[in-house]
């Protein structure tokens, strides 16, 4: 048994290599956005005003809440509460579904306005960045779904919860990236 003072990364170590690689990719994406914007400030500011900031805010709250649910799922399994852990995981996946629904609404609205990747440089970044993140949300939901099924089958317990921590860590990365993406693309003028 680990002593309380022993420090370790939560979950499987391999997921952290993946998470750090993902952060690097998103970091380059964000830096590219900022550099390109500095050369097209007016275009970016005007195009940004056409975005649905309320939808962006709602999705931020939804993703933060989903992350909180996942934290609670981890704490529940550590306390030996398998059923509660399953419920928190289900809630988290549900929140992920709401995020996808709101984002789809935004994508469809922009599509109906005739906006595409080639409309201008801002929309090229907006659509590609948010779609790239959208795909990560889907992957995160698949991972959480697998964990949910395994938790329901009693694969995790108060002494063996590495799988839940692994999925949770990935999901928090998806949340962390959105925490930068939202102000960068939707708010900062």
């Amino acid at each position, binding site marked *: 048994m680990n002593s309380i003072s022993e*420090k*370790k*990364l*939560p979950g499987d170590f391999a997921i*952290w290599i993946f998470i*750090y690689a993902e*952060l*690097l990719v998103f*970091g380059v994406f*964000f*830096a590219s956005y*900022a*550099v390109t*914007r*500095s050369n097209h400030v007016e275009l970016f*500011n005007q195009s940004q005003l056409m975005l649905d*900031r*309320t939808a*962006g*805010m709602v999705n*931020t*709250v939804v993703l*933060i*809440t989903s*992350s*909180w649910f*996942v*934290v*609670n799922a*981890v*704490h*529940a399994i*550590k*306390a*030996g*509460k398998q059923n509660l852990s399953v419920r928190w995981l289900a809630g988290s996946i549900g929140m992920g579904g709401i995020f996808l629904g709101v984002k789809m609404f935004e994508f469809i609205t922009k599509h109906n306005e005739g906006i595409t990747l080639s409309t201008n440089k801002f929309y090229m970044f907006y659509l590609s960045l948010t779609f790239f993140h959208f795909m990560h949300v889907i992957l995160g939901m698949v991972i959480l779904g697998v964990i949910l099924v395994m938790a329901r089958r009693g694969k995790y317990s*108060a002494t063996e919860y590495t799988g839940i*921590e692994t999925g*949770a*860590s990935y999901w*928090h*990365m998806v*949340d*962390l990236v959105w*925490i*930068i993406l*939202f*102000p*960068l693309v*939707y*708010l*900062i*003028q």
Partner: protein
Amino acid sequence: MPNATINSQPVNSQQNDLDYRNSIRKTFVIWVGLVSLTLLGYWIGMEGMSGNLALGLLLGAALIKGQFVITYFMEMVNAPLKWAIIPTVWLLLVLAIIALMY
């Protein structure tokens, strides 16, 4: 030897319940902070604020939110420093680049 009990519940189970409730309470406070900062950012955006003050507030809110997620949700507070520092450095670097480019 049978496990010790209090009110017919094993002591270990009661301790687990207590730990669980405390952790939910703690993370709920973090969640409230994260949502409040999100709403602050949204308000700044909807008010159409721009300039250095708005930029500072939005990036400052993102920094605090990001570090909350890193420390308490990703549980980097329990990770070795050499690994725990990576997402924090990433966060600072990304926000610094954004600030410099604006």
